[in-house]
């Protein structure tokens, strides 16, 4: 790449330029003491359209720009395009051209890339840019033959066939052949020609240089085993077709049956496995940093010529995989590109986010399910508790009226016993009064039935299992409750009255619960009248239909009413105005009524006492 043309041409050019150089010697000495102008001229030996030039010059400009923010540096660039313009008069023409072109332009430093560019400048500098320091990059083989002036320094980069063969042996340890692809060596890599004799007997050369593309594609497809292809550049194939060497690489690489090693970074990723390559990006950066040091006043003499750091082993992982080459066999400092990243490596953020989202979602779903279960359990528990409390409360009510139940029951039992014993006596008489005995037996049956009814009522009252709501006649429920309450009312000297609607009042409710509500309200009313004289103890139950849709039931007592401050809280659980109350009766009554779509309220009557009212929706079906 840097030794693009032959030494004979170089020598001819040098002779030409010596004349001009002598003429311009004096001004160069004068300019040495002044601080260098902040401008750079890049002189490249190739054509500006080449990838390599574009890549390094871009890197160079970037580094210069970022390194000289406070004092901008002007960058000029010239491309000698020696591949296509190599006539004997060309250097002289360039000389004249530059002379005219850069008249009046101060150049602070010249950067040359390639052997012809360095060679040209070394000859022409005295006349064109006398005393302007030079930074170069060129083939080591060429530089080592020069005696460089003190204001010229740079980096050497030697691409060698040896390197390519060594790389190839790394990839294919049993390497027997190296297939050389590219333009003829004298154009592509003159230095390789000199190396050919040193390859030794172990590796045979298969020369595929200078072939037409079609022929080349055929040949690379049938290479023998233990062969590695070494690619330089193809600018023009054997048929005279011009190529961008990168396109040429792609064109033959896809047909190749063996791995391809290369020596320029620009070929990585196009089908070659890789190799010790020169990286234009690193090179541009390296040259720019050197130029900056000099422009910033550092003496050129302090910067010795050294090997460029832009050459390094770079490989294409896709190709390594294709040829089943282990990364372990690569040089230690190798850079592996085009790693086929695993899904994890490529998208680990997205995967993490998605995973977290799924996890979060699962947690939420799980949490919601758990919550739902807990709520369900709590509902069941609360329903169970309510049933329990209702039953308990009913029990409490029962104990209050148990004496009247005993009375109710013992009344028929007493009658039965007395009747039976009377009959016993009558049977012993002579003659027995059989007619009377018959009447007695009939009465015993009646009393027995009556006792049975009391037991049935009692059982209804005590029944624990909650019946589903059913359509019942509210009148019947009230009557049953009154029947249960009458003995208690009598005992307490309370006048209990029930004023019912003449028509059936169908409601949908658990009748036992409804009965409990009425019992509770009526018993509360009786309690409220206890402090009054017997004539003033009254509890009145009324039921009536309002608007044909609602049934209103009121339970009014003649007591002293409820203290105004306690009225609003009267339905709250565990709130009681009684000394021995549980505070549950009215709370349960409200629950029962509201659950059946009704409402319950309480107010004090203007002339004393309280009245509890509850409503229930009238059901359209009539009770049979």
């Amino acid at each position, binding site marked *: 790449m840097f030794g693009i043309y032959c030494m004979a041409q170089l020598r001819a050019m040098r002779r030409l330029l010596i004349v001009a150089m002598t003429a311009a010697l004096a001004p160069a000495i004068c300019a040495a003491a002044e601080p260098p102008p902040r401008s750079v001229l890049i002189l490249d030996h190739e054509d500006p359209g080449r990838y390599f030039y574009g890549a390094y010059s871009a890197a160079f400009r970037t580094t210069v720009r970022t390194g000289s923010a406070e004092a901008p540096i002007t960058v000029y660039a010239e491309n000698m395009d020696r591949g296509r313009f190599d006539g004997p008069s060309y250097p002289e023409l360039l000389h004249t051209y530059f002379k005219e072109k850069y008249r009046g332009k101060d150049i602070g430093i010249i950067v040359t890339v390639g052997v012809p560019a360095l060679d040209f400048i070394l000859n022409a500098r005295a006349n064109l840019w006398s005393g302007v320091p030079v930074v170069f990059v060129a083939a080591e083989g060429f530089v080592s033959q020069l005696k460089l002036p003190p204001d010229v320094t740079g980096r050497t980069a030697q691409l060698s066939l040896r390197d390519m063969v060594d790389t190839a042996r790394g990839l294919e340890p049993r390497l027997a052949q190296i297939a050389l692809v590219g333009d003829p060596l004298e154009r592509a890599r003159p230095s390789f020609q000199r190396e050919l004799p040193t390859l030794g007997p172990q590796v045979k050369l298969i020369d595929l240089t200078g072939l037409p593309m079609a022929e080349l594609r055929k040949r690379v497809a049938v290479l023998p085993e233990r062969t590695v292809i070494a690619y330089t550049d193809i600018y023009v194939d054997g048929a005279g077709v011009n190529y961008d060497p990168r396109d040429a690489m792609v064109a033959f690489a896809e047909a190749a049956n063996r791995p391809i090693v290369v020596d320029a970074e620009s070929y990585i990723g196009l089908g070659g496995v890789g190799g010790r390559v020169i990286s234009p990006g690193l090179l541009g950066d390296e040259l720019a940093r050197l130029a900056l040091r000099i422009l910033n006043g550092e003496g050129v003499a302090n910067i010795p010529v050294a090997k460029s750091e832009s050459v390094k082993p770079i490989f294409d992982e896709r190709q390594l995989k294709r040829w089943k080459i282990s990364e372990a066999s690569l040089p230690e400092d190798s850079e592996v590109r085009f790693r086929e990243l695993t899904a994890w490596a490529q998208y680990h953020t997205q995967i993490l986010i998605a995973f977290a989202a799924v996890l979060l979602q699962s947690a939420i779903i799980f949490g919601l399910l758990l919550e739902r279960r807990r709520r369900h359990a709590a509902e069941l528990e609360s329903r169970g508790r309510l049933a329990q409390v209702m039953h308990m409360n009913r029990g409490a009510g029962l104990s209050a009226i148990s*004496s*009247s139940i*005993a*009375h*109710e*029951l*013992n*009344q*028929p*039992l*007493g*009658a*039965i*016993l*007395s*009747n039976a*014993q*009377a*009959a*016993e*006596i*009558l049977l012993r*008489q002579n003659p027995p009064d059989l007619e*009377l005995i018959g009447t*007695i037996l009939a*009465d015993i049956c*009646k*009393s027995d039935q*009556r006792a049975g009814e009391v037991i049935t009522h009692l059982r209804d009252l005590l029944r624990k299992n909650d019946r589903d709501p059913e359509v019942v006649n509210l009148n019947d429920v009230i009557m049953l409750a009154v029947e249960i309450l009458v*003995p208690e009312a*009598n*005992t307490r000297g309370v006048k209990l009255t029930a004023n019912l609607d003449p028509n059936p009042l169908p409601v949908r409710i658990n009748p036992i619960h409804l009965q409990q509500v009425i019992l509770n309200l009526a018993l509360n009313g009786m309690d409220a009248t206890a402090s009054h004289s017997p004539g003033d103890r009254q509890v009145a139950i009324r039921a009536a239909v309002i608007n044909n849709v609602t049934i209103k039931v009121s339970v009014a007592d003649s007591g002293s009413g409820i203290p105004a401050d306690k009225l609003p809280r009267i339905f709250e659980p565990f709130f009681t105005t009684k000394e021995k109350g549980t505070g549950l009766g009215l709370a349960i009554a409200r629950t029962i009524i509201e659950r059946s779509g009704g409402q319950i309220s309480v107010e004090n009557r203007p002339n004393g006492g309280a009245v509890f009212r509850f409503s229930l929706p009238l059901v359209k079906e009539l009770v049979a």
Partner: protein
Amino acid sequence: MTTAPPVVHVVDDDASFRTAIARLLGASGYEVALYGSASELLEKLPGGALGCILLDVKMSGLDGPQLQERLGELGNRLPIVFLTGHGDVPTSVRAIKAGAEDFLTKPVAKKELLAAIERALNRYEEIRDHDSRIAALQSLVSRLTPREKEVFALVVRGKLNKQIAHELDIAERTIKAHRQQVMEKCEVQTLAELVLIAERLGILAAPPGNHGQP
């Protein structure tokens, strides 16, 4: 005193129970009078014939204990046997304290019931005998003149004739005559007998200045 069978007055608001009890008592040889409520009994208040009241505790209107109280006010001496469907302690204590003969729980066995009724009847006979003896004594004492009654009251308290004469401010001889009259009218021979009459009629309990009737 009379050959008529004893009457059991049954007060119960439960017709079936009333009838059954009436049959049992009738078959057992008692005369039975039935009342559906306390007020009904008060209307047809039975007289002094041998008998007792079988009274239900729990009734609409006046209940058993209230009727008992009312009868006491009216001076009716018929013994009362309570019957209750549910024997609660406070009610029974109240009833017994107020003079009830017995307190039975329904359903009541025949033996128990008849025994209670017999006890009540016997008790009534005792009461009646006692009452008639007191009445006889009272009729004796009622024949005394006011002055003789004054002398009687002081004699039975153990006062000497001289003391009585001084107290009533009359001659001792006159006192002697009055004292003779008292002994005769009360049909007694000794002072001890006279004191016994005074004791039974409650004259001794009265303050010495009060010479009125017991």
